[in-house]
C-alpha cells in the first residue's frame, strides 16, 4: 500500500523551544532508541544539566555547549498511516539562511511561540519567510504554558496577537495549540492542566495537514536538465514540475518559443506513452508489446537538438523523457538493454530550457 509522505518544518524565535518540542515529540511517540537516549543522558550529565530533549536534533558539539540550534536538521517519524519528515530550523537571526534551507523543503509549517516571552522579531520574520516560501499549511503551538500557570487568559491573548500577525502575512492557522514541550502537555498526551482547551494536541493536529498534491490539470512544465545521446537518439531529460505529457502531444520549447511534437517518451526500462506529475496509475505503455527496445523506438527523421537559431514552424521534439512515470513499467524486464551511450553537447549555456504546453500564454517570461 502506498504510504503518504509529508514534510513539515518547525519555526519560531530562538529559545522558544523548537528542538525541545521535536525531541519531546519523538520521545513520547516512542521513536527514540534506548542507545540514543543513553548517549544524550551521558552528554547532559557531562554538562551538569537535566536531560535535554533538544539534543536529539542538536547534534553538533557547538550546538550542545551553546544550547542553540545552528543548522537545520531533519528527522523521521512514522504514524499509523503516514511517514513524516520533521525539519528543525534554527531560530537565531544569524542562521536565517539555514532556516530557509530547511523550510523550502517543507509542505507545512509549525510555528512556535513562547507565551512567556511573546512575539519576537524572529517570530515575525519566520512567519513572513514561511509565507514567502509558499507554504500554505500552518499549525501554531503556544509553548511554555507551564511557565504561565496554564492560564487561559494568556493563551487567548497570545492567540489574538499571533492571529493578527498571521493575517498580515496572509496565512491562516489550521490550529492554535496551548502546549508545553518541557512537560509534554498537549504534545502527544492531552493536558490535565488545561481542561478549557478542546482542540487537537500537536500529534492530532498533524492529521489536519494534507500531503503535497501535484496537480495534473496544471499546464505542462518540464525543465530540461540535460541532453543525453543514446544509440544516436537524443534525449532531453528532466523531471516534470507540473501537468502531464504524452506521445504525440504538441509542446512549446521555452525560451525559443518553437512548437514541437513529442515523439517518444522513455524511462530507463523502455518507452512509455504518457507521464504525469501526479498519479502514476494512469500511465500505461501504449502498446501491449513490452518493452520495445530503444533502437526500435525511433521513428521519424533525425532531430536537431538544441533547436537552431532560425526555428522551423514545427519541429519534432526528439524525446521528452520524464522522471515521473517509472512505476507503470513494472515488472522490470529481466535484462536491461545497455545502449551505446554518450553525452550530448549541453545546449543550456546559462539559459534554462523548459518544455511547456503550447497554450501557456506567458512563455516569454521564462527566458
Amino acid at each position, binding site marked *: 500500500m502506498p504510504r503518504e509522505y509529508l514534510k513539515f518544518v518547525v519555526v519560531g524565535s530562538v529559545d522558544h523551544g523548537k528542538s525541545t518540542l521535536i525531541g519531546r515529540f519523538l520521545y513520547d511517540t516512542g521513536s527514540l532508541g534506548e542507545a540514543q537516549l543513553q548517549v544524550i543522558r551521558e552528554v547532559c550529565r557531562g554538562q551538569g544539566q537535566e536531560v535535554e530533549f533538544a539534543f*536529539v536534533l542538536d547534534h553538533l558539539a557547538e550546538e550542545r555547549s551553546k544550547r542553540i540550534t545552528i543548522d537545520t536538521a531533519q528527522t523521521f517519524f512514522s504514524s499509523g498511516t503516514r511517514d513524516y519528515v520533521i525539519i528543525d530550523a534554527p531560530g537565531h537571526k544569524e542562521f536565517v539562511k539555514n532556516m530557509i534551507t530547511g523550510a523550502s523543503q517543507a509542505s507545512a509549517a509549525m510555528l512556535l511561540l513562547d507565551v512567556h516571552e511573546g512575539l519576537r522579531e524572529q517570530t515575525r520574520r519566520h512567519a513572513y519567510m514561511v509565507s514567502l516560501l509558499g507554504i500554505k499549511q500552518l499549525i501554531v503551538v503556544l509553548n511554555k504554558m507551564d511557565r504561565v500557570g496554564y492560564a487561559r487568559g494568556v493563551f487567548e491573548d497570545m492567540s489574538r496577537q499571533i492571529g493578527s500577525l498571521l493575517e498580515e502575512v496572509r496565512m491562516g492557522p489550521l490550529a492554535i495549540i496551548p502546549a508545553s514541550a518541557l512537560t509534554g502537555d498537549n504534545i502527544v498526551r492531552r493536558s490535565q492542566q488545561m481542561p478549557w482547551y478542546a482542540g487537537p494536541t500537536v500529534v492530532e493536529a498533524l492529521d489536519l495537514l494534507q500531503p503535497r498534491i501535484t496537480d495534473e490539470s496544471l499546464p505542462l512544465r518540464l525543465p530540461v536538465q540535460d541532453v543525453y545521446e543514446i544509440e544516436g537518439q537524443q534525449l532531453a531529460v528532466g523531471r516534470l514540475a507540473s501537468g502531464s505529457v504524452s506521445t504525440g502531444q504538441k509542446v512549446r520549447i521555452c525560451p525559443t518559443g518553437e512548437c514541437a511534437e513529442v515523439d517518444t517518451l522513455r524511462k530507463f526500462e523502455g518507452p512509455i506513452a504518457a507521464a504525469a506529475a501526479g498519479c502514476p496509475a494512469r500511465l500505461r505503455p501504449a502498446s501491449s508489446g513490452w518493452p520495445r527496445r530503444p533502437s526500435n523506438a525511433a521513428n521519424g527523421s533525425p532531430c536537431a537538438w538544441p533547436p537552431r537559431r532560425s526555428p522551423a514552424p514545427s519541429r519534432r521534439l526528439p524525446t521528452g523523457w520524464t522522471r515521473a512515470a517509472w512505476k507503470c513499467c513494472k515488472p522490470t524486464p529481466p535484462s536491461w*538493454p545497455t545502449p551505446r551511450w554518450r553525452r550530448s553537447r549541453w545546449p543550456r549555456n546559462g539559459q534554462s530550457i523548459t518544455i511547456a504546453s503550447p497554450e501557456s500564454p506567458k512563455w516569454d517570461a521564462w527566458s
Partner: protein
Amino acid sequence: MDKLDELENQSIYLIREAYYHFRKLAAMWSIGKDSTTLLWLCRKAFFGRVPFPVLHIDTSFKFEQIYRFRDEYARKWKLKLLVARNEQALARGVNSENNKLQCCTELKTNALKQAIARHGFDGLLLGIRRDEHGIRAKERYFSPRDGQFKWNYQDQPPELWDQYKSRTAGDTHIRIHPLLHWTEKDVWRYVKREDIPFVELYRARDGRRYRSIGCQTCCSPVPSQAATVDDIIAELETSTAGEREGRAQDKEDAYTMQKLRALGYM
C-alpha cells in the same frame, strides 16, 4: 505518488544535476546497501550505464564477502572501478587497535584525499542518509569541502528547493548526497521492489546479522533472525535501535563522528 517513487525521482534528479555540474564526477561505493542502491539509481538515471568512475576506498580490513561482491558486480554492471588504498599508512601498520579516529582518518579520509589528488575529481556522489547519524542529519545535498578537505558545518551554503551549490573558488570538491532523504526502511523497501543485490552479511546467520557494514575490525553484528528482505523490513518496523550501533567508530565519544566528518570522513 508512491513514496518510493518520490524518493527515487528526487535522487535521480540529484544524480543528473551532479553529472551536469561536474566535469570529473565519481561515485563512492562502499559496497554496502546504500551505496549499492546509489549505483542502481545511477544506472537508472543514465539508462543502464554509469558514465563516471566508481571509487572504492579500501582499508584492506573489509569483509571477504565485500570484496567478492564488489568484483562480481563491477563486472556485471560494467563499472569503471577504481580502488583507493593508503599504501603508505598500511605499510606503517596503521590499524584500529590503538586509535580508531586515526585509523579511519588514515585509511579512509587520507586514502580518499590521495585518490582525489590523483584523479582530480571535483564532485563525489555518496550514499549517506540523514537518519543514519545526527551529524549526517545536518548535511546538504550538495556539500562543499575546502582546500584542507574540511567540512565547514558551521557555515553551510543555503539550499533552496532544487537549487544546489556548484563549485566556487576554494573548494576542492563537492560531495553530493542523492540518498540523504531516504531512511533505512525506505532503502530496504526499495531493495525489495527493485530486487537490488546486496552483500550476504546483511542476512541473519546463527541469530546475528550486520545492519551496517564496513571494516571487519570495527563492525559487530546485532542479534536478529531476519534472513530475508521481508524479515529485515519487518524487523525495522519494530526496532528503535540505531542502525550504526554496531559501528565502533561512532561511539568512542559522543562527537567522534563529528570530528571525523569535519576532517573529511564520509
